[in-house]
């Protein structure tokens, strides 16, 4: 449609790149690209910290660490939404810290993006924590011991023994998390953020649930989303192909 209305290639190009779909696409990609590594890194450090705790404290710490993951995303995001309201406890706290009494996280697009991304890291790092914590229990103690005898520092032990041991887990986790983050939807609904940030999921949802239902737009977005998923997963798919597909 944009093609027929356009008056030339340049005009078509500018129209095509202004489509709301690209807004949704860019938010989803930014969200996935930031949240996935940050959550994995944070989860790794939490796992290291918890692993060093005395046994008695580990149970409660693990329970509370898992809370953001256990609670339904819709509810968890809603709770945070209340708290960051300019009259909520976190909103007021931020206003005091930054010394700006008119600060509202919901008012500006960049702030909303940051809030959503922080929420994403908060809610998805417990998963990384659990997986890494389980992985840390199986680190070969022999290697650690011999490294100590060789005079390796604490940091060297972590870097040369623990982290290589956890690499396969990281690949698996990155795969799952990229998938989950790519379909981010609940926080956008809970944070009421459609005006500032659209993900692909919420974009389709808006097409379907509006006063006039834009079925073909929703269907087109769905297909484009699926293509995006395939492109995003292509490294993993190619790897699976090598590992598995060529065995026969």
């Amino acid at each position: 449609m944009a093609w027929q209305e356009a008056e030339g290639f340049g005009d078509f190009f500018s129209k095509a790149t202004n489509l709301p779909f690209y807004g949704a696409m860019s938010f989803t990609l930014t969200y996935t690209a930031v949240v996935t590594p940050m959550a994995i890194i944070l989860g790794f450090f939490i796992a290291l910290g918890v692993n060093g705790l005395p046994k008695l404290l580990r149970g409660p710490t693990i329970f509370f660490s898992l809370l953001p993951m256990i609670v339904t995303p819709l509810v968890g995001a809603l709770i945070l939404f209340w708290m960051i309201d300019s009259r909520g406890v976190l909103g007021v706290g931020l206003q005091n810290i930054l010394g700006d009494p008119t600060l509202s996280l919901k008012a500006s697009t960049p702030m909303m993006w940051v809030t959503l991304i922080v929420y994403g890291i908060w809610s998805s790092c417990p998963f990384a924590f659990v997986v890494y914590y389980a992985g840390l229990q199986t680190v070969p103690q022999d290697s650690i011991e011999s490294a100590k005898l060789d005079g390796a520092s604490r940091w060297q032990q972590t870097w040369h023994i623990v982290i290589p041991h956890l690499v396969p887990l990281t690949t698996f986790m990155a795969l799952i998390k990229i998938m989950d983050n790519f379909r981010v939807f609940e926080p956008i609904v809970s944070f009421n953020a459609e005006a500032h940030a659209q993900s692909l999921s919420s974009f389709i949802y808006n097409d379907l649930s509006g006063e006039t239902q834009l079925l073909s737009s929703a269907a087109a977005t769905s297909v484009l989303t699926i293509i995006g998923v395939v492109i995003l997963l292509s490294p993993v798919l190619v790897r699976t192909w090598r590992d598995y597909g060529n065995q026969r």
Partner: protein
Amino acid sequence: MSASIQDQKPLYLKVLINSFLVLWLLMAAFPFLWTAWGSFKVEADFFSKADWTNALTGVMTIAESGEYFTTDGYHGAWVQEEFWRAALNTLIVVVATVCISLTFGTLGGYALARSAYRYAFWVLLIALVFRAMPPITLVSGYLLPFFLVEHVGAFAHLDHCFGGDQPAVHAVDADIVL
């Protein structure tokens, strides 16, 4: 032995790790503890427009119910707003989904693992892609045949066959959120 000396963490590292953990626990647990606390207050306190510290002091809660904590919120949710109905619906969906997907998943996984044919690999690839797809992408395909039959002229006669005069089911919005 140097090994036993190294097992002792230096003080700065201990402080660093423990303060990091405390900070994380605060971040992780505080929203839920805050909400659990607030659930025993009346709305005017927990969503106070005047002063957020009302949620701590509970001025309006004492004024409205005479006590420091009130269970009005729970009564309102379960009885007045019929939250139990939503809970029951969720339970039905959970039980059915877990039973069906576990049955088919385990049987199918076993069959795929044992299968010597090439299609097993493609099924695996497709399963990965499906795992990554937002559930909502499937909705636009199914919405039309299931709910919007009467909106579309070509299907109008179908609708007459079923004698349907009902308005289009806009309750589908709620389904999507679930």
